């Protein structure tokens, strides 16, 4: 028993050195792992992101993953092996901590050469008495190295750059809604229960590229598909799938808007063509002597005046609620009168253009088309709208009493219209307008003093 206790005590210094060596070796392995793992995770994240966004196929992903894994293992091995401390080094560290004056190091490095056994056992006894000074975990704790912090910083930087590049890639004009929809369809197809929906989306993208399919049909298909996607999105429980469906829904909306906008463009083009034809016909027929050199402006100003002002046909006091019916009547009377005035002004403008052409000797193709389709801000024939300018907001100006008593709100004769044309043109209103409220009654303001003499 005593011999066993002595043997145990004799084993202790070598055991302690072995424990310390093992601990240091594990620290070295941890160092290598902490250097490689952040970079490895970054690469894996990049590969998976590229795969999810369908920029990388499964085979390429597998090959890259294998290559990255092999590189990581090799790096860990190459980093780990040369840095494993030797047992004499571990023994020296124990000597330093225990202030053992190289006893542990001597015991750890004595070879099979015949040394005095008495001396060896004496050193072992002395070293064993000092082992109590050492606690492996306390005296040899793991400390994070600078290489780990550098690895993490580089990984975070690479991740940020990748994310920025990826988001820029998706917001660039290279990805049209159709292409985006196609990508989304591929991503959605990876979810088994959404494969049917993904197939429909892909079919939709094919039909959108098909010129044989009419615009109406495309719009209908987009609407139907969007409804399906939104229904599926409501039923969906997985967050990832929900996000994809939400993306698809917004893409389909933008496609719908695009198709609507293109339809309106077609309508504009067709209406503009009709107007040009109409204008040309009027210039041929008319023989008016319009002296107003600014034909376009006069036409536009007439429109503005007739659409905006109800002064002539709507004499009401300030503060009174407008009678919508009267207002509408007044406004309704105005378009009829304005139409005839508009025709006359168009005739005059057409004549002036013809004269200008003769004077300058320009060919028809070089002239600025005066009789072209009206600007987008004006309503086209057939479009809904009470006023002539789209989304135009107008202020109802209240005439002074003497002027209001004389007028009945109707531009009666062409002579009056002629006279009104000869008067200097003034802005419809220069007062700041409040925010537009669609159903609010028109606002009434008193006419500014400086304009009262001008309007008769």
């Amino acid at each position, binding site marked *: 028993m005593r011999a066993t206790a002595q043997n145990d005590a004799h084993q202790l210094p070598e055991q302690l050195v072995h424990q310390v060596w093992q601990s240091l070796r594990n620290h070295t392995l941890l160092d290598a792992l902490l250097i490689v793992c952040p970079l490895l995770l970054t690469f894996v994240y990049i590969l998976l992101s590229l795969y999810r966004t369908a920029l990388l196929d499964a085979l390429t992903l597998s090959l890259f993953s294998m290559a990255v894994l092999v590189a990581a293992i090799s790096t860990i091995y190459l980093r780990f092996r040369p840095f494993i401390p030797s047992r*004499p080094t571990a023994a*020296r560290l124990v000597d330093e901590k225990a202030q053992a004056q190289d006893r542990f190091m*001597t015991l750890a490095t*004595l070879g099979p050469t015949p*040394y*005095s056994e008495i*001396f*060896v056992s*004496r*050193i072992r006894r002395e070293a064993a008495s000092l082992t109590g000074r050492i606690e492996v975990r306390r005296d040899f704790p793991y400390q994070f190295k600078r290489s780990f912090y550098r690895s993490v910083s580089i990984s975070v930087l690479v991740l940020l750059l990748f994310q920025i590049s990826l988001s820029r890639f998706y917001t660039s004009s290279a990805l049209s809604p159709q292409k985006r929809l196609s990508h989304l369809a591929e991503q959605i197809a990876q979810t088994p229960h959404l494969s049917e929906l993904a197939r429909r989306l892909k079919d939709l993208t094919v039909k959108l590229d098909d010129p044989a399919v009419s615009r109406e049909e495309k719009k209908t298909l987009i609407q139907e598909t969007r409804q399906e996607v939104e229904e599926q999105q409501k039923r969906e429980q997985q967050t990832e799938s929900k996000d994809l469906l939400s993306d698809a829904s917004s893409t389909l909306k933008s496609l719908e808007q695009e198709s609507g906008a293109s339809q309106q463009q077609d309508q504009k083009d067709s209406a503009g063509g009709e107007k040009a034809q109409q204008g040309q016909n009027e210039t041929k027929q008319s023989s008016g002597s319009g002296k107003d050199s600014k034909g376009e402006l006069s036409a536009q100003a007439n429109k503005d005046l007739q659409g905006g002002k109800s002064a002539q046909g709507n004499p009401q006091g300030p503060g009174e609620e407008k009678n919508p019916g009267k207002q509408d009547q007044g406004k309704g009377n105005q378009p009829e009168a304005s139409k005839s005035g508009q025709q006359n002004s168009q005739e005059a403008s057409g004549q002036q253009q013809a004269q200008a052409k003769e004077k300058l000797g320009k060919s028809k193709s070089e002239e600025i088309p005066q009789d072209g389709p009206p600007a987008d801000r004006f309503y086209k024939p057939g479009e809904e709208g009470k006023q002539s300018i789209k989304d135009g907001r107008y202020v109802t100006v209240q005439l002074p009493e003497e002027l209001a008593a004389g007028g009945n709100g109707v531009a009666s004769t062409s002579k009056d219209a002629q006279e009104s044309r000869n008067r200097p043109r003034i802005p419809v209103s220069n007062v700041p307008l409040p925010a537009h409220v669609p159903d609010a009654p028109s606002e009434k303001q008193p006419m500014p003093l400086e304009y009262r003499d001008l309007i008769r």
Partner: protein
Amino acid sequence: MEPESFQQTFNQLEREVRKVIVGHDDIIRRVLIAFFAGGHVLLEGVPGLGKTLLVKTLSHALGVSFKRIQFTPDLMPSDIVGTQVLAESSGHREFQFKKGPIFAHVVLADEINRATPKTQSAVLEAMEEKQVTVFGESHVLESPFMVLATQNPIELEGTYPLPEAQLDRFFFKLLVVPPNPVELREILKRTTGTESSTMNKVLPEDGGKLVNDMKDLLRHVLIAPPIEDYVVRLVHATQPHPQNGSGTGSSVKQYLRFGSSPRGAQSIILGAKGNALAEGRVHVSYEDVEKILYPALRHRIILNFQAEAENVTADQIMGEVIKQVPRD
């Protein structure tokens, strides 16, 4: 012999010598280490520092015979080793060998650099061979045998500096420095008053066997292979030529003509073992090596002219070497 007995005897010797010698504790320890390591010591210092007294006290404490040789320029080799004289015995005349002062256990070669090289070489043979040859006849010197040589660093005229080959035979070169004020006060108190210090013999008259046992024990002290490698690297670092040595330090290349010989490494290891035993250990540590390095190598590295012109000492170069050579 047990290491504890060695330490006990060693400490006792130190105590007895300190009764007479004030200060110089490291000198006393190193001289004792050199004695038990079987080496010789060169003491360098200005006159009046107690070099001769130290040697006499030491030999008295050891209980061994002591002889002092005052080296002068006219000293002949036969004055050291002895000579044959014509003597009459039993009615007829014959030559008899009369032993010289070298035939002692501890020999003090005072101001060895004042004697001619021929005379110096006579001592060197005795130091190396532990024997002398006179008229073709060899006479073995008794063990233990130790030569303690002294030299004066300030008197250069009329002196014959020891050649490098002879310097290399000394185990240690110790620099004896003047005492500090406290030590000087103690010296004055002991030497100018009525007090007289008495010291006791530590070793018996026939203490030769004991000394041999202690010498044998010193050689059994354990030294770890990494520490041996450290000694090898240190000695190798003193070589200024790249093909011979590592030539690590710029000061080594700049100021040394020759580096240390293998005797330097032997001195370091034996000296470190002696130091470890004196401290009660049976193994050598890195600190033992670093303590012994200076006395073991300062006389073995040869400075060049530039070092002498710039007053660079061997100790400064040794300091650079220790900084540049890692322990592992």
